[in-house]
């Protein structure tokens, strides 16, 4: 009986081992790209990032594997391990929950698989993305010009819609916007700068936005900056509900709510990143060369990126010429290889 059990155990254990060996032996000829999308339900562009990467990979004749990080650091780490197992040749990830990036770096390094990270730098990953701080400053300056013209640089309040969940990106963008505003309007006293936690979501941040406005009942002219358009919209909607929207001018980031028919009139501008089209940059400057056999040097620093995305600050007026996200993606995929959305759509280049 005991021996029988032993034989069973050994057989049971050896089957997976043999299968593992067989898997390794399987030949790999096609280049295989892995893509981990952010998986945060906050944002339409997170899904679109994967769709664009998939389309471009197919155009290049590569195999493509997509997983979702589910906005969860632990899932992101698990996905990295799955990519290693699936034998991908390179990985792109947007990890909105970047807390596990060091661990993912370690896993990828061990497997010797190059990995591209969007927007949040890690020493072990190719950085492709925007300089969030610069994008913040550009937006802040755009808002500053309006504030200077309309209110002679004398708003009653400057509200910042934060999203602490986005970590350092939040600090760069909202901090950058305050800096940009100060560049144009240096004399706004520090006491006028206040913030609330919007969680980067117009609907979720709404109650906190109303509370903030209630806590400053005398403020009439209110400038709003934020982590993204959604956060800024939370305050605008709150002001509409408290009957104070007439004195509100907001400027967002990411351009999510500045196109289409439903643009709120108090959103004066935003900064397009064209996040859905980042794969163009990653493929042009990192993945493409790797697939062709010349691995580029690792450039992991946001200050000296592997591929730099240009921020495109726009006023609401200028944004009317920009199509909405789905239309942009269509046109992007029809454009010649290597063309970025910035080239196609930014009405306000450099």
């Amino acid at each position, binding site marked *: 009986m005991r021996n029988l059990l032993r034989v069973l155990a050994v057989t049971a254990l050896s089957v997976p081992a043999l299968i593992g060996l067989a898997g390794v032996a399987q030949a790999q000829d096609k280049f295989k790209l892995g893509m981990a999308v952010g998986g945060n*339900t*906050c*944002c*339409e562009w997170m*899904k679109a990032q994967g769709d664009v990467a998939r389309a471009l990979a197919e155009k290049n004749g590569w195999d493509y594997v997509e997983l979702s990080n589910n906005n969860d650091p632990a899932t992101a780490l698990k996905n990295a391990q799955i990519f290693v197992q699936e034998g991908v040749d390179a990985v792109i990830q947007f990890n909105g929950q970047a807390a596990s990036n060091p661990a993912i770096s370690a896993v990828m390094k061990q497997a010797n698989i190059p990995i591209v990270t969007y927007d949040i730098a890690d020493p072990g990953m190719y950085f492709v993305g925007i300089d969030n701080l610069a994008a913040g400053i550009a937006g802040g300056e755009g808002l500053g010009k309006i504030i200077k013209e309309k209110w002679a640089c004398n708003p009653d309040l400057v509200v910042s819609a934060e999203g*602490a969940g986005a970590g350092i990106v939040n600090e760069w963008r909202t901090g950058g916007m305050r800096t940009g505003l100060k560049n144009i309007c240096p004399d706004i006293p520090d006491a006028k700068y206040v913030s*609330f*936690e919007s*969680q980067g*979501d*117009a*609907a*979720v941040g*709404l*109650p*906190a936005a*109303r*509370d*903030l*406005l*209630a*806590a400053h*009942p*005398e403020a009439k002219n209110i400038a709003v900056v934020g982590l993204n358009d*959604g956060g800024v*919209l*939370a305050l*605008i*909607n709150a002001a*509409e*509900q*408290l*009957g*104070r929207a007439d004195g509100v001018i907001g400027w967002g980031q990411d351009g999510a*709510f500045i196109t289409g*028919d*439903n*643009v*709120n009139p108090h959103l004066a501008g935003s900064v397009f990143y064209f996040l859905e089209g980042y794969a163009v940059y990653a493929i042009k400057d990192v993945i493409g060369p790797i697939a062709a056999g010349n691995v580029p040097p690792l450039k992991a620093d946001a200050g000296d990126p592997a591929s730099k995305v240009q921020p495109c600050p726009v006023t609401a007026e200028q944004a009317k010429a920009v199509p909405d996200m789905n239309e942009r993606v269509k046109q992007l995929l029809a454009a010649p290889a290597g063309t970025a959305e910035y080239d196609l759509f930014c009405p306000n280049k450099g």
Partner: protein
Amino acid sequence: MSLNQAIETAPPAVPLKVRFGGWGTGLMLLAVWLLLIVATGLYRQDFFSQQTVLAVAFTMSIVGVLAIGQGLVAISGGFIDLSQPAGMITASLVAVRLSEAGMPLIVVIIGAILTGMVWGAFNAAIIVFAKLNPVIVTLATNFIGLAVLFLVFQLAEVPLNSDIYHFGRASFLGLPAIFWPMLGLVLVVGFLLPRTKYGRRATAVGGNRAAAKARGISLKATRFAIFMAAGGFVGFAAVLFAATAGPFNPGSGNAMQLNIIAGVILAGISLAGGRGNFWMLLLSVGFLSTIPTSLVFFGLSSDTQSIFQGLILIIAVAIDGYRARKGTP
């Protein structure tokens, strides 16, 4: 038959002490709420402004309507409905699609309420026919519902300047337009529940199933009715949500869940069923909605608000447990 008649016409046999206990909950809630208001007002006098009233009233409105639905499920012995986020977002999506199609506000409201009722009926069907506990059923349907919603849409928003958009931004007699229906619904439900045949049935089913069954009350029919009614309130809350929220996504309703359950518990509506006064919801939801506003006046970060709300909930249920234990031999 005569026995049946008796319970359906006579006032419920609630001991005086328990009834008084209900008002005790109310007095205590009122006291802590006033204490919070006075303390904040002393710290910063501009707390006493129309803006504060509006901010708190807006927050109360949606939470309050959802709390009625949650309370109905609780008082009838269904414990809690964990599927409210999925139900509300589904109904909100219907409201958005109807208003995008240019439908008048009344059609949008009816559409959302019907959607909520269908969602409630779906939950009830599983609960009643499979005889499964509502907590687990609604946990599962919320998982499933949200997942399906994510596959269906990423972002939705009522059109700018549509009727429903203006409804969400209007005020009436100094309070938000969306506040009045909430107030009316709480008052009406709180009035009808102990005074009508169906209301007493719902409470009786929660208090003692066996006794209720023995009196000839159909458990199945009552459960179905309760969950559909609760779903109707979720559907109406979805109208208020879609009207005010701006762009929302399938996950936007999750944040409210805990606050709603806390409101029901603080109001003294027993999660075990059979006991509770819905009018207390105005006090509990009002109190809970004032906490974050007050904290902003005190200059505390919004993260601290969860600490206060959580601790208050623990203390409240501990007191409730202590009283219930003393009350029973």
